[in-house]
């Protein structure tokens, strides 16, 4: 996916005036936070479990090599293969090769953000393979040539008529729904995708967790598409970041208790599936081959540095569901795969801060993201880190760099500062006249565009303090 984070300001401005998007965003803010709050109310131990999972994730980061090697050994012991991919290109090449060797033409895919990160669909299509996204939201996006705008509700920016139009363009008339009710459209996608599942030679899924103890990969879904994508085709390929590993099944259980509650506000998703190796000799069904592609793509760079806590992230989406900036502009404005506060931390890491300098500024620093994060990532602190890096690299806009420099020089000379501000305050008061407020002010159009500026008081704080007022 092309990085458009450089155009953040323009994209955000467009998003703010997009009425359809604004309506969709309202429904996120109405839906997810309330559901999450109710789910957590039903589990009084949530805070203690969050502490435990946070400590577990830190423990994994401190022993990442050991757990990854153990995971690899266990996958191999179960008859599967592990492939390591340093970057996006290596991941795509590995998966295309596996598909070629399997003689695959049709590929069914479950939802995977790692696959978005490496632009896997483009690579498979370029190799002449037909890829079908099978998650309902992802499927609609694929038909439209669109990308996810949310990591767990990918098509949240669309409405039913968008889905209806996409289906009308791509589905045969005899399979079309008779109404544009969500239930009817969902049933239509089900009918069409059943054939895709049956045709698929290879199934590709992501992973919510990799379990070192057993070599299992785990996905959590509500639709069942991730399961059909792996139990029907001959080959199952899993693509996952190396940060997905957890030590044991007990650790996976603790994480399951916070994941869905933080994400959709469910106690648990409908399907939590643990897959270990290919089908056994006496099994009735299941894939004949099982591959896991472990993706680095910049993750190891986070280790041992100021952003290490980002490796705890379990991709629940709670930070974006509670973010006033995400809620105002949606996910696409962020310009790459990961939106919201977690995206504002990850995107600079993966595409470079020089290409995404606005993202760490796309925050009011209200702190809700850190408050709702089930693994307690201090997201505002991490965004502040990127702000500092952006300034060091000179990646912030020119007017900001000069403006701040001028301000710094000015503020470091208190006597002159006071004289000039007193003068400016007097002028503003004069301009305000008897109204006591200004409709417009020089250099302050951003403020006065939507509200009036109150006139400054006649005497400032320091003046009054000096004159003995207490």
């Amino acid at each position, binding site marked *: 996916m092309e990085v458009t984070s450089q155009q953040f300001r323009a994209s955000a401005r467009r998003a703010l005036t997009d009425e359809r998007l604004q309506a969709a965003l309202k429904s996120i803010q109405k839906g997810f936070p309330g559901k999450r709050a109710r789910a957590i109310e039903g589990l009084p*131990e949530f805070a203690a479990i969050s502490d435990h999972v946070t400590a577990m994730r830190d423990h994994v980061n401190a022993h990442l*090599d050991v757990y990854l090697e153990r995971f690899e050994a266990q996958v191999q012991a*179960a008859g599967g293969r592990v492939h390591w991919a340093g970057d996006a290109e290596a991941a795509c090449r590995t998966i295309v090769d596996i598909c070629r060797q399997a003689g695959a033409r049709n590929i069914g895919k479950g939802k995977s953000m790692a696959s978005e990160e490496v632009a896997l669909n483009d690579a498979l299509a370029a190799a002449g393979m037909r890829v079908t996204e099978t998650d309902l939201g992802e499927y609609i996006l694929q038909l439209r040539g669109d990308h996810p705008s949310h990591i767990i509700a990918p098509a949240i920016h669309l409405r039913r008529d968008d889905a209806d139009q996409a289906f009308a363009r791509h589905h045969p008339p005899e399979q079309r729904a008779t109404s544009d009710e969500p239930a009817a459209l969902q049933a239509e996608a089900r*009918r069409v995708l059943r054939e895709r599942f049956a045709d698929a030679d290879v199934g590709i899924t992501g992973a919510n967790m990799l379990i070192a103890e057993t070599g299992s990969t785990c996905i959590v879904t*509500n639709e069942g598409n991730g399961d059909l994508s792996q139990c029907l085709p001959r080959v199952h390929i899993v693509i996952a970041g190396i940060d997905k590993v957890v030590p044991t099944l007990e650790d996976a259980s603790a994480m399951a208790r916070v994941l869905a509650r933080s994400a959709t506000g469910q106690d648990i998703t*409908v*399907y939590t599936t643990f897959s*270990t190796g290919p089908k056994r000799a006496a099994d009735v*069904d299941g894939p004949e081959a099982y591959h896991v592609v472990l993706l680095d793509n910049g993750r190891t760079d986070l280790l041992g540095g100021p952003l290490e806590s980002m490796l705890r992230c379990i991709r629940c989406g709670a930070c974006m569901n509670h973010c006033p900036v995400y809620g105002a502009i949606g996910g696409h404005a962020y310009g790459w795969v990961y939106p919201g506060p977690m995206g504002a931390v990850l995107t600079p890491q993966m595409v470079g801060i020089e290409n995404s300098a606005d993202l760490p500024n796309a925050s009011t620093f209200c702190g809700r993201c850190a408050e709702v994060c089930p693994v307690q990532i201090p997201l505002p602190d991490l965004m502040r880190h990127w702000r500092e890096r952006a300034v060091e690299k000179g990646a912030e806009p020119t007017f900001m760099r000069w403006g701040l420099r001028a301000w710094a020089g000015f503020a470091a000379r208190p006597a002159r500062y006071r004289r000039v501000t007193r003068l400016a305050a007097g002028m503003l008061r004069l301009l305000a006249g008897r109204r006591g407020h200004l409709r417009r002010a020089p250099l302050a159009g951003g403020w006065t565009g939507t509200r009036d500026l109150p006139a400054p008081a006649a005497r400032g704080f320091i003046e009054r303090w000096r004159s003995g007022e207490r």
Partner: protein
Amino acid sequence: MSDRDAILARIRERLPAGDREESAAARLREHPAGPLPERARGDDPTLQQRFREQAQAASAEIIDADGPDELPGIITGLLDAESTDQDPTADAQAAAGVVVDESLLAELGAIGSCRRAEPSDALAVSRALCGIAETGTLVLRSGPGRPTTAAFLPPIHVVVLDRTEIVGGYEDAWDRVRAAGDTPRTVNWITGPSRSADIEQTLNMGAHGPIRLVIVLV
């Protein structure tokens, strides 16, 4: 250097030196549980009641049976009701096949067979290893006579669960899976029927998997 060696080298370079093997090995060996929620604890009747409530809250249906010999009547009843219902997904209308867990062939051999599920199947009957009270979750595992496709292709999924196999939390379920032998290819935790809210956040059942999940408690 291979990608594997390069990734592992980068990790080791960034982590403080020292023996990390032992503390990781200890965690794997002892697999300690985290804080167990109150809702995962209680005596058998409490857990059975909680399982029932949680499963129903997740839109699963529950049928109480005295024993497996009631199964043929239950399954026939479900199939008859379905053929007269207007099924919104329409794929059940032409559907006829029934997939049955091998352990239930004695009761259901006349209605279905144990095999991989097909898109044309109307119903599947699985047997759960156990049920988890804390969230009303069923635990199924793949293996000889236990097709995984049964849980996802047919529009109706019936799961037979022995009341005495209801445990408190997820950790208890893993004890059962471990006790049953090697890690199976697939362990499925299933909580209610398939659903999606991807179109306008409107929740509808039967996204790709079953539209109805019927738990028969024996």
